[in-house]
């Protein structure tokens, strides 16, 4: 986290001159010096870094060079859109991916399982943005069922704007969420299948069969449960790529989330937004790691013993 904070700070330091971004052409050298003094740019690097961290903790990242608005406001405006999109797509991916993975492991040789595996290979080879474009082409342009950009109507709940409460909000959400879900889904299917095949070969499954337990209870309460520990580790790590792929999805569907903000910031070299986004993501990563660790304890009783 600190390492990322330092990179974000270094970006401020070395990329571009903040003074020339703030003042006009005809400002005199004295005025520039005065401004530099006021902004604390003449302090030592260590002091400046301290200020930077102090401000970041309070959520202050300065003003966007391009939009002339505080970064804090911009991010708060966009955050709900991204979160709703990511949550729904993670939900879809898990809801569809886990049963598909279990099925392909249990009925390995059936044609349906083979079909799922082929689909997942294609899913891995298809870049996210192409999935989005093809969805737009079929459901948006040809069939005209679903809107192709934006969030639709949103309901303002004061500090949170949600698209979950209106029909047009849901309609706009479907395609981006599916686009984002497909990549994770293919990964979850392959992972669960591989882990499950391993577990099914182990002794305690044989023993459970010998005890005459029902096949269903063996598959789900013995095999699946033991599959989940490594799967959760990797899914936790995958949340990072969820964020990265959200950038792409948001860009394809012009979804007004943080990813779109970040892409525009890169195009325009808008450093305050870039570094704020970076810090936010690092924070999310740390948070996810924490959640994953807690989940281990919830799933695996062996860890609770010591």
């Amino acid at each position: 986290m600190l390492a990322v904070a330092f990179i974000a700070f270094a970006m401020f330091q070395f990329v571009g001159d903040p003074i020339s971004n703030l003042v006009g052409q005809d400002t005199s050298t004295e005025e520039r010096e005065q401004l530099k003094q006021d902004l604390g740019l003449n302090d030592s690097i260590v002091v400046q870094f301290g200020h930077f961290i102090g401000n970041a903790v309070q959520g202050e990242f300065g003003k966007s060079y391009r939009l002339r608005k505080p970064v804090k406001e911009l991010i708060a405006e966009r955050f709900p859109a991204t979160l709703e999109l990511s949550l729904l797509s993670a939900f879809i991916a898990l809801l569809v991916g886990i049963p598909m993975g279990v099925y392909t492991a249990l009925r390995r040789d059936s044609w349906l399982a083979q079909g799922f595996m082929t689909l997942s290979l294609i899913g891995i080879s298809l870049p996210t943005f192409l999935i989005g474009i093809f969805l737009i082409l079929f459901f948006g342009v040809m069939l005209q069922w679903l809107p192709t950009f934006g969030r639709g109507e949103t309901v303002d709940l004061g500090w949170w704007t949600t698209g979950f409460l209106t029909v047009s909000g849901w309609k706009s959400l479907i395609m981006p969420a599916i686009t984002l879900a497909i990549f994770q889904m293919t990964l979850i299917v392959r992972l669960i299948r591989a882990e499950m095949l391993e577990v099914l070969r182990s002794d305690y499954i044989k023993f459970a069969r010998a005890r005459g337990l029902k096949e269903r209870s063996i598959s789900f309460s013995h095999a699946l449960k033991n599959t989940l520990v490594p799967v959760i580790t990797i899914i936790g790590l995958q949340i990072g790529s969820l964020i990265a792929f959200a950038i792409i999805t948001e860009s394809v569907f012009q979804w007004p989330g943080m990813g779109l903000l970040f892409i525009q910031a890169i195009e325009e070299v808008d450093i305050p937004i870039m570094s704020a986004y970076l810090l936010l993501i690092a924070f999310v990563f740390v948070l996810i790691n924490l959640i994953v660790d807690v989940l281990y304890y919830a799933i695996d009783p062996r860890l609770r013993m010591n």
Partner: protein
Amino acid sequence: MVEYFIDLRQRFFASDIWWSFKSSPLVVIAAFITVIIIFSSVFASYVAPYNPFDLAQFDLMDALKPPAWMAEGTSKFLLGTDDQGRDVLSTILYGSRVSLLVGFLSVIFAMIIGIVVGLIAGYSGGWVDAVLMRIADVQLSFPAILIALLVDGIARGLLPKNSHDELAIYVLIVAIALSFWVQYARTVRSSTMVERTKEYVQAAQVIGLPKLLILFRHILPNVMGPVLVIATIQLALAVITEATLSFLGVGVPPTSPSLGTLIRVGNDYLFSGEWWITVFPGLALVILVLAVNILGDWLRDALNPKLR
């Protein structure tokens, strides 16, 4: 000399790899497609029906013509034309050249960084190893595309604005390479640690060869196998990353479009019904990536003695 090559040829056709290649039709098809795509994009200026960068060869009057089999299409343009009257098939051929070039160069660059870091970390051990691998771990926890985006963004900030378009392709190569080196470094490091304790390395140390010579002449050839497998799989990833970055508008500029740039440009015409400008470059990308992926998967399994 000639006998040597004949012997080499016989050994190749008798090898396990050739056998496993022959016995999988999917892999043969994938290899065939890959070779065709590479060949036709390298020789794009001979294969393509038109040169999309030669202003004399396209005409605005031909703009937005649909593919040849549709009612308004002409046989002149097999896959239709784009908004400036350029033949879509030709732009795809030239575009895949840019995509493949960026893909290959970034993979090679990443490989060089990864091998050097891996060799040094694996051979020296101690704190050098700890520091290098900690950096690699931190980077590995971030998705590659995010890192490529960041490198790209920072480079844009550092470089003067008017040189963005000229340098874009090099920035892109470096950005992709910097986000992919970790895989190589980790693999090379672990095999170097194994090789280091072997007798031939100890012998080389005893006769007092310099460290660099031992690393690159003795250890490197023995750790290259897995590296080549990773490189094949990474090539597909690098092509996807390039396309994605270009699609997002931070990659190759429209003046020398790659497949990703073509898809980005065509995306604006999707809503007015000119779907072919986007869909054909998209399909080309999918076929290329799928073929390389299948080859990479096969190579990994064929070279892995455990799976035989």
